[in-house]
């Protein structure tokens, strides 16, 4: 379970470039809830993700994972609770290391690392089984360097590495945006499968409205650092992309009106 409470974040505070990224964000993800986040550029989607992962700290407010306040923990300290897949397919894996070594690193997520062998026969068998679920034939290439894989393969592997050790929270940062349509569809499908299989509490940022409607159990839309629309599964299933766009224009217009009124 993830709770983001009263989070406020301003970039470059006190300068001419001051920009409010998040204001008064309250968001609670129940156990196993899969939330997709959409919004235009600068709406604060990525900031929410980065605040959850610990890459950024909120100015005020707190982040709580399964009852544990993690607001003050650095990104690597929170990794115990969080699996992440980045937008850049190159970001989630180590190219000079083999597939099995990458998986061995992921397998130890958040644990204390000592002098035990990283890859053992038992782990290798487990990795092979896990890789089969990707249906990319990677189970036969355990000793291949990850740098030799295509972007789609690397992203599928990143997804597996982020999830197979069952994190409390899964964060997906536009993780299909850099892939060609075919590969993006594959990674989308794998995402749905893996989230269901491990019953993962998931926060996914995307630019793709269709994907946001198709995946997940809840959808939120952000604009200028606020959550302006929050749809549960039933409401979401009735929505189409034009509906969403229409809704966005309507709320955006209202928000502008509010502000003019206040001034």
């Amino acid at each position, binding site marked *: 379970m993830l709770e983001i409470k009263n989070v406020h974040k301003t970039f470059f505070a006190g300068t001419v470039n001051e920009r409010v990224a998040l204001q008064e964000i309250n968001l609670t993800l129940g156990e196993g809830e899969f939330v997709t986040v959409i919004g235009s550029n600068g709406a604060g989607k990525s900031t929410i993700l980065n605040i959850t992962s610990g890459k950024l700290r909120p100015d005020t407010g707190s982040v709580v994972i399964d009852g544990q306040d993690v607001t003050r923990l650095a990104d690597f300290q929170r990794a115990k609770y969080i699996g992440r897949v*980045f937008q850049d397919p190159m970001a989630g894996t180590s*190219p000079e*290391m083999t597939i099995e070594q990458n998986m061995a690193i992921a397998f130890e*997520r958040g644990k204390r*690392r*000592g002098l035990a062998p*990283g890859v053992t026969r038992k782990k290798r068998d487990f990795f092979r089984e896990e890789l089969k679920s990707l249906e990319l034939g990677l189970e036969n290439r355990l000793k291949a360097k990850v740098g030799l894989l295509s972007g789609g393969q690397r992203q599928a592997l990143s997804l597996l590495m982020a999830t197979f050790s069952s994190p409390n929270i899964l964060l997906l940062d536009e993780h299909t945006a*850099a892939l060609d349509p075919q590969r993006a569809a594959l990674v989308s499908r794998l995402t749905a499968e893996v989230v269901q299989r491990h019953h993962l509490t998931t926060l996914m940022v995307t630019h793709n409205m269709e994907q946001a409607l198709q995946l997940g159990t809840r959808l939120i839309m952000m604009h200028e650092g606020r959550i302006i629309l929050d749809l549960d599964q039933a409401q979401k299933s009735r929505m189409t992309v034009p509906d969403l766009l229409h809704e966005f224009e309507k709320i955006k217009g209202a928000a502008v009106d509010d502000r003019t009124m206040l001034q």
Partner: protein
Amino acid sequence: MIVAVELGLIYAVMALGVYLTFRILNFPDLTVDGSFTTGAAVAAVGIINGVPPLVATLAAFAAGMAAGWVTGILHTKGKINGLLAGILTMIALYSINLRIMGKANLPLLRQDTLLTPLRDAGLLGSAVGILVFAIIALAIKLVIDWFLHTDLGLSLQATGDNEQMIRSFGVSTDRTKILGLALSNGLVALCGAMIAQYQGFADIGMGIGLILAGLASVIIGQAIFGSRIIFVATLAVVLGSVLYRVVIQLALQAGLNPNDMKLISAVLVIIALVLPQLKVFRKVQGLSKMKKSLMAPSEPAGAKV
């Protein structure tokens, strides 16, 4: 020539240390010039004061680790550029080394060292000498191979390869960098201790320019013998170190002045770094990868696809 091979095998320990920072951590660490002399100084002072040679040599390793730790702290906690952090420690060590030694040159004449049994038996400069030093170098190489494949070692490798990734799996990259620098400089100091015992003195200037010998060994060795897997990569470093000493020896025999050796080392490294950029050599596998941590990036790293 046998002496050159022996020296190459001893200096291989230093080259393995440089390999850890330069290739594994992707961090060009200049602490080496200082920590090598620190190792020699600690071992020499220890031996002169009656400490058992083995203990003195291990103390040198510990002193080197401390030096690497300082560079690591400066770089990670002090947020000082890696090259500068190394230079700062190296310069500071010059004074510290003089303090340890008390004077600029410490002879080990008539002292019992680790190498006394070999020397007394007249085996230095013979095939047996080469065998002994080869066993030492290969043993250390195998320990490094083993270490890099442990959970901790894998996280060290990933730190040099993709920092964002390894942090997302819960590893403090500050800690792995400090650990890598400490281990690396420990090995360099260990090498300094052995060289001091081999040549029979410690000298304040013995580490000057040594980083180039280390880099040359790593670059030349891996360009010729490959670096596809760690086992091969570390073996290539050992062989590269031997090759480097042999080349230096040949240059000396050809009539070059010993004082020109630093210039020759520098030219060797420059050639190894620049050659792969020429079209003819682009295809030579291995060479092009070598330069990644020493060259200015030609394209923005981590560019969005």
